[in-house]
């Protein structure tokens, strides 16, 4: 006949074992979902910077890094990068020396990040170096 002590000992062991096992299972599931999430999602930095480069590669001019001042308008920005809502990446662009700023339709509040690039601004036959600030608003 099994003693009461042996039965109690068995219950205690299996209780602790079950707790340890459950903790291990949940930890693995948590770890795996974190890994999966990180694998599936591109980092913000990559997404926004790749999109931002389109403004330097022929959006407002025909050459790399060249902006034609008369094409630097909100309309061109919208044609070049269309957004549906603030759930997309949104951008505002500023030409520092030329004192011109254009803002995307769904760019609200303050930027999350800004990128500074040198650009060549063409205004008719006049050509000069300017600084383009790209303000980035991440999806809200």
């Amino acid at each position, binding site marked *: 006949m099994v003693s009461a002590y042996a039965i109690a*000992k068995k219950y205690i*062991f299996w209780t*602790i*074992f079950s707790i*340890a096992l459950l903790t*291990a299972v949940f*930890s*693995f599931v948590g*770890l*795996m979902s*974190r*890994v999966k999430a*990180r*694998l599936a999602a591109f*980092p913000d*930095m*990559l997404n926004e*910077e790749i999109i931002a*480069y389109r403004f*330097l590669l022929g959006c407002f001019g025909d050459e*790399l*890094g060249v902006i034609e001042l008369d094409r630097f308008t909100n309309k061109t920005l919208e044609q070049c990068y269309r957004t549906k809502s603030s759930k997309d990446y949104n951008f505002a662009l500023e030409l520092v020396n030329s004192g011109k700023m254009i803002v995307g339709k769904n760019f609200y509040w303050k930027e999350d990040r800004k990128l*500074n*690039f*040198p*650009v*060549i601004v063409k205004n008719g036959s006049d*050509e000069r*170096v300017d600084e383009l600030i790209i303000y980035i608003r991440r999806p809200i």
Partner: protein
Amino acid sequence: MLEDVIDLIVFIAFVALLYFLIHTLAVSPLEREAMIIEDGLNELRYDYILSVYLKTKVGNETMLELMIKAKENNAAWKQWKNATKPFLKYFKDTYLVLDNRTFLWKGDFHEGFFKIITDIFNWVELFRERPLEGALVTKKFVFDGKEHYVGLFVSGLKIEMPESGIPVIVA
């Protein structure tokens, strides 16, 4: 009872070890991937900056033509310095090299006493087969029938970049 406790401890230790192993195998490559992305973006960024910089016009010449002249001509060097000042903020902590001449050292003009010291190192560099090895961005230009190489080195990259191989022909 003691045996059961030991079994439990061994089990918990095994689970912890397994967790650590999976974490190392699954998460570390992701972190490395993030570093590669960051460095890739740096390369893209500096490639763009260098391209715009070199084709910027100074009078009737491009910055590249001015740099080629500035290698041996003091007046051209001064002119190049003035034209480069607005770009210095983009070249922070970088080394700009044309052929075997260093133009920017850690984002500042490479001249004076400091240049004499580093010229010794450059002189040693001449004996190396690939003086621009390790540059983040390398560009090859053909100007007046001569080949010129521009290299941009960036300090503080998180991982060592692979060799760029054959430089890109831009002009």
